[in-house]
């Protein structure tokens, strides 16, 4: 009763709710920690995929975890030197190969040549377990800043997924 009056008069939140909200926030951060080794691997695999189509300034590549407003994103800034001349040809071959194997998951990829002296932003949210199989569902256009989402089906759950821990990652 006093607790109620006190809250009513001071209009402060019940400490039970404060505890719950603080915990939710801190756990979201705890659970989204990606160990450096995994981050390095993501970087290498993303680079390998991009490298097939564009020439990249590898030294200037940045890969960071970004936490804001209740979600976690992996942001990559990839300075592109130039788009490969044979990119369209490569794509056509890849699509043909996939059609042959019946895997149509990346047929949505589009790539156009031209002036691409900008940065491609790669946003990927993955649980560490899924990282090994980082799928490249790439979608790129000739606009300077492009968003590439990988594994977006898992994005909603990722912020609630716990990191698998050290043992699984070594």
């Amino acid at each position: 009763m006093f607790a109620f009056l006190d809250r009513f008069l001071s209009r402060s939140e019940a400490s039970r709710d404060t505890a719950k909200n603080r915990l939710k926030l801190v756990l979201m951060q705890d659970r989204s920690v990606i160990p450096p080794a995994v981050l390095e691997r993501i970087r290498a695999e993303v680079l390998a995929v991009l490298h097939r189509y564009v020439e990249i300034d590898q030294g200037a590549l940045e890969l960071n975890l970004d936490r804001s407003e209740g979600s976690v994103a992996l942001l990559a800034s990839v300075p592109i030197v130039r788009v490969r001349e044979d990119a369209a040809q490569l794509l056509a071959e890849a699509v043909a190969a996939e059609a042959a194997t019946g895997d149509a998951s990346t047929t949505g990829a589009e790539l156009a040549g031209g002036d691409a002296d900008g940065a491609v932003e790669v946003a990927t949210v993955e649980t560490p377990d899924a990282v090994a199989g980082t799928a490249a569902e790439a979608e790129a256009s000739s606009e300077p800043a492009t968003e590439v989402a990988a594994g977006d089906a898992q994005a909603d759950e990722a912020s609630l997924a716990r990191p698998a821990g050290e043992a699984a990652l070594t």
Partner: protein
Amino acid sequence: MATGRVIVVTSGKGGVGKTTTTANLGMALATMGEKVALIDADIGLRNLDLILGLENRIVYDIVDVVEKRCKLRQALIKDKRMPNLVLLPAAQTRDKSAVTPEQMKELIADLQSDGFGFILIDCPAGIEQGFRNATAGATEAVIVTNPEVSAVRDADRIVGLLEAAELRNPSLIVNRLRPHLVKNETMMSVEDVQEILNIKLLGIVPDDEAIINSSNRGEPVTLHEAAKSGQAYRNIARRLRGEEVPFLQFDEGGLMGRIRRFLTGVR
């Protein structure tokens, strides 16, 4: 070969009630006729013997067994009150590296072939070597937490580490619940904790003065019929055996509850 269940009782944070929980669940299961072995994996900080009242009967400990100074059977201390309950005590003068995960697995296999139906492991606090040893041979995990921010955060970390160690689907015991504080909105409720951790609830144990008394005397509270916490532990033991038991209801928030608290001195 018999396949006894191997359950590690863990928490991450210290002082949330792992040892008390291990002692009481072991005692309750033994009372129900199960053949139970308790392993104190908290090497260097042994306490399970003290909570069970068996501290004066230790001759050999877990390190003596793995270093082959004695047979496993010689190190097991039989409970006076409940002969189908035994304790394998921790060593007090060694550290967590004195036992390896491999040795732990061997030991557990030996206990299983001796016919123990339940093997409960009291895990040390922390997430280092002691935790890895204690979880090495387990096939199930029970996480003990308190409705309090630091305990819940550590419990969450433990869930992740258990998953990495292939110990999936741990269950949760919310210990030291103070129902009238929940009613006052000054303590997180069991539902709050469960919503955050999102794992299966195994039991709720209220904060209880009887626990302090029983620790002082070395008599697990579950031996006392009247104590509410003892009832809670017995219920958990029954759930572990596969029974459906409704969770205890605590309704101490009303006028009668407050009068009772005033009269009994329970906060």
